[in-house]
């Protein structure tokens, strides 16, 4: 559905994207994790052709790329980007915003009332946008994406300003949209939340995808324990840690259990429990842990 080939862009001396390659299919949610200023928004802007890359190309639906304006319009019929709260029209109601997106992409706004119900916006959607709180604005922005109902959606900071209830509500909607075959890119700082609905999370660093975490495949299991740097150094003198272990952000030691026999795994658990008591978990590395691994 979407193929990024050899994308590169640099602003003066800073390389933002460096020969980046990536492919995604319909029915996937791709999380994009990276600190601010590492190229998430630039990546989305290039996919939507708001920014021209220095090199490389974006291929959508196997045939469309940004060769001319006609193709750009064809791509934009398949693709929407998440509006920013500050860009909403203060003098227009939420309904007017939703009708704009629904009619521009689908030629009809019949499905708008259902979206309003789903996102629990009925009590405010007819008021002017200037009266909305941050959370209300954010829900409206998300509702606009639902109203456009395109195959590809690029959502930058989709959970900004939302409370726990609304994060759960939007997460449900994302899962439902995925089931309907949408390809959704989500850039969010709520990393644990990404684990709930993303099929993959990519980590951008120095213009490249440094890691791709796939939730749909079997993942390596780790023995995880909270450890101070002093304790970690002490432990290394007492026990020979496996070469594949990782010590994340100077607080989390992760020992891979894959490839070990059951007695070996038990021995490691006993050793760690003996040393550090109850501070121990077993499981794959989550988005937060990978994030800390690459950016701390």
């Amino acid at each position, binding site marked *: 559905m979407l193929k990024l080939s050899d994308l590169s862009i640099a602003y003066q001396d800073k390389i933002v994207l460096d020969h980046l390659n990536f492919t995604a299919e319909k029915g996937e949610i791709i999380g994009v994790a990276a600190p601010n200023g590492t190229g998430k928004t630039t990546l989305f802007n290039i996919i939507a052709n708001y920014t021209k890359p220095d090199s490389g*190309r974006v291929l959508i639906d196997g045939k469309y790329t940004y060769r001319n*304006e006609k193709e*750009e*319009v064809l791509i934009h019929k398949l693709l929407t*980007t998440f509006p*920013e709260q500050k860009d909403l029209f203060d003098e227009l109601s939420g309904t007017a915003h939703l009708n704009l997106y629904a*009619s*521009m992409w689908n030629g009809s706004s019949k499905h708008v009332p259902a979206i309003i119900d789903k996102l629990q916006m009925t009590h405010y959607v007819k008021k002017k946008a200037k009266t909305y709180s941050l959370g209300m604005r954010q829900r409206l922005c998300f509702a606009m994406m639902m109203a456009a109902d395109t195959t590809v959606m690029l959502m930058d900071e989709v959970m900004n300003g939302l409370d726990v209830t609304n994060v759960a509500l939007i997460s449900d909607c994302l899962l439902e949209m995925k089931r309907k075959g949408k390809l959704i890119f989500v850039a969010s700082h709520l990393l644990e939340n990404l684990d709930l609905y993303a099929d993959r999370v990519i980590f951008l660093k120095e213009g490249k995808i440094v890691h791709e975490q796939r939730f749909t495949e079997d993942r390596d299991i780790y023995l995880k324990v909270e450890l101070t740097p002093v304790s970690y150094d002490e432990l290394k003198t007492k026990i020979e840690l496996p070469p594949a272990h990782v010590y994340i952000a100077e607080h989390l030691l992760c020992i891979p259990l894959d490839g070990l026999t059951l007695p070996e795994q038990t021995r490691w658990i006993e050793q760690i429990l003996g040393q550090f008591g109850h501070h121990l978990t077993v499981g794959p590395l989550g988005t937060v842990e990978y994030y800390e691994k690459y950016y701390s």
Partner: protein
Amino acid sequence: MRWNYILFETKMLLHNRKNWLLGIAIILFFPIYYLQYSQTDIETLRDQKNIEAEQFHSIFKAFPEEMRETKEGQNIYDNLTEQASLINMQRFYLWDEEENASYIKDGLRLNELRLELHEAGNKGIHPNYIFSKEEIHKEIALLNYYQKHSVSITPDPFVASNYIPAALDTIGGLPFSLLVLLIGSSMLLHDQQNRSVMNGLPVSFLQKMFSKVGIHLGQIFVFLVAGIGIGSVYVAMKTGWGSFTSPVLLYSSGNFTAVSTVHYVLLQLLAFLLISFLLLVASILVNDLTKNMYATVLSIVFLLLLPSLLLSAGIDASWLRPLVMIDIGAVLSGEAALRFETASMDYQHALSWFVGLSLVMMAVLYMKTKLQYFPNPSVRGSQN
């Protein structure tokens, strides 16, 4: 999609308070300007004929006696005598509407004699009293119109039919251009201020531009027509409607022709339409360079003022004539042609220039859009 986009843009336009204020200014201009216009001392046909008659005392006084001794001199003197007689008869006919035909017949003969004098070199006549060829042709055009159409030869200058073309001539030129530029200045505003909402709409740039220009053009014309309507009703209530078939002089290809007021007003409106379109397209193009609506308006106003500034500085600005023609009132009346001493400054040339310049600007916008998709040669290899 495009229709939905136009509907949305129209909704945004209706929310634009600045444009409503400008619209009210346009509408109010027509009744308010009448307060000043009605105080103007407009020379009537009777006044004009009285002045012409009085001038003959001086003309005969200044005519060299010795010239009358030659055959040529005697012919000129006879010509002048006949002219004086015809003018006095015209003054008499003006008192009776029934004598319109006689007035016209004498008027045509009078101007024939004036032209004969021009052919004879106006010998013996003081230069101050020579009736210019332009004035003669203007009068012939009016007389021919009166002869062809049975309309009053002494219309009240303060009735609605006479006021509306005068008001349109007054608002035309720089004031109208400024209003159009100010109304159009917000055309791209929400595309810039609400970028992330508007950016990805599946509509091409040119479709967006034409939709915006179209609805702004519509709005300007609604204001203009409303102003004309309200102004006409106001004046009609004060002095009467007048006759919209009464003649107005129109300059065309070096000649003056008399056309009906309706014809003249329609020409004015057509010119206003083309000027508005040209200015709106120009403001999109300039805004694309400046990215600032104030800079856009100021740049275009400066361009429009440039020919007058250069002319007053004594610099040849003939190549900027198309911009002078924005003052369509001066073009239609022939004033611009006389000022710049060229017969090509008539309404046909003006309208052609407006269409031509608009096409050029649209072509530039089209090419600019096309060029955005040309790959950068330095990275062409990696684009494929």
